[in-house]
């Protein structure tokens, strides 16, 4: 039941500090600080998030600054403006997304292939 009710930060709301939890979070407003979710984080187009982000799935459509770690996948949608390091086993950058920073997918290379010899 806990994961059924919605969690939503509206466009005119600012949260400063730490946000943690196990249910899906949709941000249209502003968050500064830390986000630690065992669930799906959606940063909408109108949102600004300046935070260390940890989530299972991160869907980024707005402005994000800070390291993003997604344990399953991260998607930078066409409207995303992201700066920082993005780490996830699966990362999608949609045409139109703006991103500056580092990508880490933790790829398991086949035996005999050394990283950097692409």
């Amino acid at each position, binding site marked *: *039941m*806990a*994961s059924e*009710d*919605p*969690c*939503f*930060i*509206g*466009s*005119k*709301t*600012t*949260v*400063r*500090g*730490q*946000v*943690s*939890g*196990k*249910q899906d*979070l949709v941000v249209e*407003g502003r968050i500064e*600080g830390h986000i630690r979710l065992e669930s799906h984080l959606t940063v909408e187009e109108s949102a600004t998030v300046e935070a260390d982000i940890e989530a299972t799935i991160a869907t980024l459509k707005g402005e994000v600054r800070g390291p993003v770690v997604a344990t399953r996948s991260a998607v930078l949608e066409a409207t995303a403006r992201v700066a920082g390091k993005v780490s996830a086993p699966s990362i999608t950058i949609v045409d139109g997304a703006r991103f500056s920073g580092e990508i880490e997918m933790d790829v398991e290379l086949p035996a005999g292939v050394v990283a950097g010899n692409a």
Partner: protein
Amino acid sequence: MANTVIGSSIVIDGEISGEEAITILGTVKGKVAVAQGVVIEAGATVEADIEGQTVTVSGKVTGNVTAREKLELRPESKMVGNAKAPRIVVADGASFKGNVDMDV
């Protein structure tokens, strides 16, 4: 849906501010200051000073509450802290410890 909702499994440690109404079902520690109404639902735990146009409490609040219009403590609510509002309603069954200031 334009309002902010803090879900039941969410914990926020810090400050929430804004121009729109907020409904809290989870846990908030720190400070809540919004221009519209604040609703603290049953099951929610708020350890924070709260400021809003109207403040409606059904859950647990520890902290000082300032409502510019009205503070309402519902039957199942528990509140420890000072209450300041021009109109304050404490329902039968609510538990409350603190000072009341109606600006008389």
